[in-house]
């Protein structure tokens, strides 16, 4: 996808500042995001579509042989139970249910592989080179 410069760096006014050819904003206009959006039945529709796709995926399972199916099942259940995350997916894919289903399944596989909550600082010793043997990433 190519995107216009205007889309990347909004041109606000004559007071926009330049560094080289990069536009700099002198004023931080709000970026529109929605944290609490009423998405009605579309979430339920997505959940149904995800479950259907997951069953089909299970039947044809030829991908991601490294990931454990039971783990994926659990992650899927957790994800479809997380309404906020589903809403974020819907927004990111502009409410295209097929695209959303695809992303949900992709997220399940990603989480099965990378186990985000299991990453500890000792797993990234060069990125965060501090002494830490007992550190765990907790959840608020």
């Amino acid at each position: 996808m190519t995107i216009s410069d205007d889309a990347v760096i909004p041109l606000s006014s004559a007071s926009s500042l330049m560094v080289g050819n990069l536009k700099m904003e002198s004023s931080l206009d709000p970026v529109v995001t929605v944290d609490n959006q009423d998405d009605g039945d579309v979430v339920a529709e997505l959940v149904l579509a995800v479950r259907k796709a997951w069953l089909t995926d299970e039947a044809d399972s030829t991908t991601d042989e490294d990931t454990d199916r039971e783990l994926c099942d659990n992650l899927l259940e957790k994800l479809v139970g997380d309404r906020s995350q589903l809403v974020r997916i819907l927004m990111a894919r502009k409410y295209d249910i097929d695209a959303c289903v695809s992303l949900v399944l992709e997220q399940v596989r990603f989480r099965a592989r990378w186990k985000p909550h299991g990453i500890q600082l000792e797993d990234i010793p060069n990125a965060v080179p501090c002494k830490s043997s007992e550190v765990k990433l907790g959840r608020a």
Partner: protein
Amino acid sequence: MTFDVPNATFSALSCHEAGAWRLAGYSREGHVVSNYKLQYWEPGNLGNRQKNGSADDLDAAVLEYTKYVVYMIELMIANMKGAPAPQTFVVVFDLKGFTPTLIFRKDVRLMIRKLIYVAQSQYPERLHKTLLVNAPFGFESAWKLIQPLLDEKTASKIRFVKVASLKEEIDPDVLSKEYGGNHDEYPLPFSVSS
């Protein structure tokens, strides 16, 4: 200043200079703020300790970087205040230290792709804004390579700003002194207790 970071403790170790990415308080609107300092990012040090230039070295470096990105995003999420506070974050991305050769390194390009993939596909709608500061001359060419990798929505959230403008987003008492605020430099994330 005492800054409220629920369920988090931070390192008092003098390792500020070692890591690139740290939590840096909350925005005026309540978004978790993190600060990515390119000058402290050392992609060549990621992965295998002993390198021989093999594909395995590259894979190991990208793997560690991917884990790092996931870890940091999870850390930001874990430190979000409860609703109605926004469940999104702001990244102040400090480009000081950028050199044009950086973008032509294969490992760096792969890491940037991973960063974008993870942020866009695995944590959609979590980014509120990325504020790019201290963009040096020469960054334009790098930006032209990076920009097409971003989806339109993500790209619309990325802005080049002057350091002085950060105060519009972040209270001076929260903003680091190096950006004109009153807060000492934030330490690296050390732990988040469960």
